[in-house]
C-alpha cells in the first residue's frame, strides 16, 4: 500500500521507469508462460485503478459488526475463498488479487463512506459487497459518481438496474413467482397468509406475491402482516394463522426474528409437516440459529442449497469447509457472494481490461459453468439467469431439493403488471 502511494506522488513517466527497472531482474526469474500471459499494465488499466504488474486490488465491503454481521459473515468468507482460488490459478490477467476489507458496520451511511474510500483512496478495481437493500441504495450513488463496479450478492426486491452493479442474487420474480407456482400446483395452495419484516424488501416481495396469487393463481390472501425488525413476539399472528387456517404460510421474516418466529410456531402446535410453509428468507445460515427441529418440514424457495447434488457444488462445499471449518453452513447468499469474484475475473479477461466501463459493457453474456448452483449467465440488465429451486428443511438443518425449474429464468427487475 505505502509503496503505491509513494510512487503515485511522482510523475507517471518516472513511475513507469521505476516500475520497469524494478521488474527487470524479476523477468528473468519468471517462467516464460506467465510472463507471456500478462499484458502491460498501461494497456489494461487506463483509468488509474490499483493495478500493478503483479497485483490488482479489490474491495470487500460487508458488515462484520452490528446486527447484519450474522448474515454477512458468510458472504465475506465466500468472497475470500473465491479470491484465494483465483489467485491459486494465476490471478486475473496475470495479476494476483489483493483485497482491502472494510466494515460497513450495519450502518448505511458508513457503507457509502467506505465505498467512497475504497474507490477514491484505494482505487480498487471492483467491490464485492453489501447485503441489505438499504446498504446497496446508500452505496449506489457513490458507485455511479466515481464509476466503480459492485458485485452485489443478495436476493432482493428488484426495481433497480445500474451499469455499475452486477446483481449475483435473484431479483424478486426469479424467486417469488416460481415458488408460488410450485406451491399452488403441488400443494394445492389456494389461500395464503403473508408475513414479513417491516422494510422494503419484504413489502415489495409481498406486493408481487399478492398480485401473482390473486391475479395469476386465482387464490386469495388470508392475511398480510409486517413486524418491526428484531421483533420477537409472534403469538398474536400465530393465533390469527390458526383462525384463518391458510393453505400456505408465506414468510419473509428476516434475521433474529426468524428464530423467534419458528420457535413460537412450533410451540403453538403448528406442525410444519402438515401446515405448508414457504419462506423466501430462511437459508441454512438462519437454520443454524433456529434449530433444525423447529423448522423441519418447511419449504424455502432459493436458487441454491448446500445440498445441491452436482460436482461443482461438491467441490465448492469441500473447499469452503476446508477454509472455514467443518461446522460452517452455506446459504443462498453465500453462494451468490462466491460468484462475484469469479464473474469479475471472467469479465475482465473477456474485456481484456480492468477499466470499469469496458467491464460494464463486457458483462452481458458472461457464462460461469463452474458455479456451485450449476450454471449462470449475466443478462444485459446485469442480473443473472438462474434457476429457482424449492427445498424442504430437514432435521439436520439442510434442505432437500424437491423442485427446480427446468430452464434458467430470465431476470426481469422491472416486471410488467407486478408494480
Amino acid at each position, binding site marked *: 500500500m505505502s509503496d503505491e502511494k509513494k510512487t503515485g506522488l511522482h510523475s507517471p513517466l518516472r513511475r513507469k521507469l521505476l516500475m520497469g527497472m524494478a521488474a527487470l531482474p524479476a523477468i528473468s526469474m519468471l517462467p516464460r508462460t506467465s510472463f507471456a500471459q500478462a499484458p502491460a499494465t498501461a494497456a489494461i488499466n487506463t483509468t488509474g485503478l490499483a493495478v500493478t504488474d503483479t497485483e490488482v486490488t479489490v474491495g470487500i465491503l460487508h458488515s*462484520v*459488526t*452490528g*446486527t447484519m*454481521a*450474522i448474515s454477512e*459473515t*458468510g458472504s465475506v468468507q465466500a468472497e475470500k475463498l473465491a479470491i484465494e482460488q483465483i489467485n491459486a490459478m494465476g490471478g486475473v490477467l496475470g495479476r494476483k488479487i489483493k483485497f482491502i476489507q472494510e466494515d460497513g458496520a450495519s450502518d448505511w451511511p458508513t457503507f457509502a463512506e467506505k465505498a467512497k474510500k475504497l474507490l477514491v483512496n484505494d482505487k480498487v478495481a471492483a467491490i464485492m459487497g453489501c447485503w441489505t437493500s438499504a446498504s446497496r441504495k446508500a452505496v449506489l450513488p457513490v458507485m455511479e459518481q466515481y464509476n466503480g463496479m459492485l458485485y452485489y450478492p443478495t436476493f432482493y426486491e428488484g426495481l433497480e438496474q445500474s451499469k455499475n452493479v452486477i446483481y449475483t442474487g435473484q431479483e424478486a420474480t426469479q424467486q417469488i413467482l416460481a415458488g408460488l407456482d410450485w406451491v399452488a400446483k403441488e400443494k394445492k395452495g389456494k389461500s395464503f397468509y403473508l408475513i414479513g419484516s*417491516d422494510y422494503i424488501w419484504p413489502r415489495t416481495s409481498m406486493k408481487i406475491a399478492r398480485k401473482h396469487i390473486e391475479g395469476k393463481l386465482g387464490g386469495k390472501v388470508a392475511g*398480510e*402482516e*409486517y*413486524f*418491526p425488525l*428484531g*421483533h*420477537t*413476539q409472534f*403469538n*398474536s*399472528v400465530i*393465533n*390469527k394463522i*390458526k*383462525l384463518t387456517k391458510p393453505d400456505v404460510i408465506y414468510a419473509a421474516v428476516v*434475521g*433474529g*426474528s*426468524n*428464530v*423467534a418466529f419458528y*420457535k*413460537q410456531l*412450533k*410451540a*403453538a*402446535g403448528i406442525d410444519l409437516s402438515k401446515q405448508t410453509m414457504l419462506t423466501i428468507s430462511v437459508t441454512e*445460515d*438462519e*437454520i*443454524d*440459529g*433456529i*434449530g*433444525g*427441529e423447529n423448522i423441519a418440514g418447511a419449504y424455502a424457495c432459493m436458487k441454491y442449497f448446500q445440498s445441491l447434488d452436482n460436482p461443482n457444488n461438491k467441490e465448492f462445499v469441500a473447499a469452503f469447509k476446508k477454509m472455514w471449518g467443518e461446522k460452517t453452513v452455506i446459504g443462498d447468499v453465500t453462494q451468490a457472494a462466491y460468484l462475484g469474484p469469479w464473474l469479475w475475473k471472467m469479465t475482465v479477461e473477456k474485456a481484456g481490461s480492468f477499466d470499469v466501463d469496458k467491464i460494464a459493457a463486457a458483462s452481458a453474456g458472461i457464462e460461469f459453468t463452474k458455479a456451485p448452483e450449476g450454471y449462470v449467465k449475466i443478462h444485459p440488465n446485469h442480473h443473472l439467469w438462474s434457476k429457482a429451486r424449492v427445498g424442504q428443511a430437514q432435521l439436520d438443518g439442510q434442505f432437500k431439493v424437491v423442485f427446480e425449474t427446468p430452464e434458467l429464468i430470465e431476470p426481469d427487475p422491472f416486471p410488467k403488471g407486478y408494480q
Partner: protein
Amino acid sequence: MFGDYSIGDLGAIFAMQGFAGLILFSVYVLMALGLAIIFGQMGVINMAHGEFMILGAYVTWMTSGFFQSYLPSLFSGYFFVAMILAFIASGALGMLVEWGLIRHLYKRPLDTLLATWGLSLILQQAYRSVFGAREVGVELPSWMMGSKQVTDTIEVPINGIFVMCLTLAITMVVAWIMFKSRWGQQVRAVVQNRVMAGAVGINTEKVDRYTFGLGCGIAGIAGSAFTMIGSTGPTSGQLYIVDTFLVVVFGGAASLFGTIASAFTISQAQSTMEFFMSGSMAKVLTLLSIVAILMIRPQGLFALKVRK
C-alpha cells in the same frame, strides 16, 4: 374489523389473545425486573442489560451442549441447571462490573449510561470473538416444546406456561428479598438515604455490589428463558433493551410494583391491538400512548413518594 369473525371465534380470539398477552407480560417482567432493581434502586442506567441477558443465553447454550455430549440421559432436565449457571455467571460478571466500573460513577448517574453503553459494545464484540458472529441454536428438551389443547380453537404453548411460572417464581423471590429479608431492608435504606444508611452501620458498598449482581443475575435467568422464544447471537441483547427501558420507565422507575403493572398494561394493549391491526401499527400505537401518558405523568405509573 369484527365482522369477519363469528361470536364463537371472537370468544376464542379474546381468550387466545389474552393468553398471548399474558406470555408477553411474563416476558416483559422477566426482562425488566433486573433492570428495575438496578435502575430503580440504584439509579444506574444499565445499557448493557441486554448483553447480560445474552450471557445467560450463551451459558444455556453451552450447558445444553455439555449435557448432550456428556450426560445425554439427563438432558430433559438440563434447563434448570442452565438457569442456575446463567444466574451465577451474569451475577458474577455484574459484581465485577460494579467493582471495576460502576462504583466510580455513583455521583454521576448520567455517565453510567455512557459507561454501560461502552460496556455493551465490548461485551458484544467479546461474544462475537468467542462464539462467532452467527446465531447459535439452543436445543430444548422435547417436553418443553409443543402445546396443550384446551378447546378446539384454544391451544396453549408449553414454553409460554413455563415462562409464566418462572416469572411468578422469580417475582416472588425478588419481592421476598426486597421487602422481607434484612438485606432487602438495607437496600431500600441505601436507596432512600445513602449517607444516613451508612451512618447507621450499613456497608453501602457491599449492598450496592450485591444489588447490581442480583439485577444482572436476573437478567441472566431471563436470557436463559428467552432461548426458548428468541434468538441467541452477539447482538440479540439489543432487541430487548428498548422495550425493557420502556417498561421500567413507564412503571415509575423506583417501584417494582410499577414495573409489573406497566408490563401488564403494555403487553395486553399490544397483544389486543396486534390482533385487529398489523404488528407494526400495534407497536406504533402502543408507543404513542405510552408517550402520551408519560407526558401527563412524567414520573410513570407508580412513583415512590419521596420528600423533595
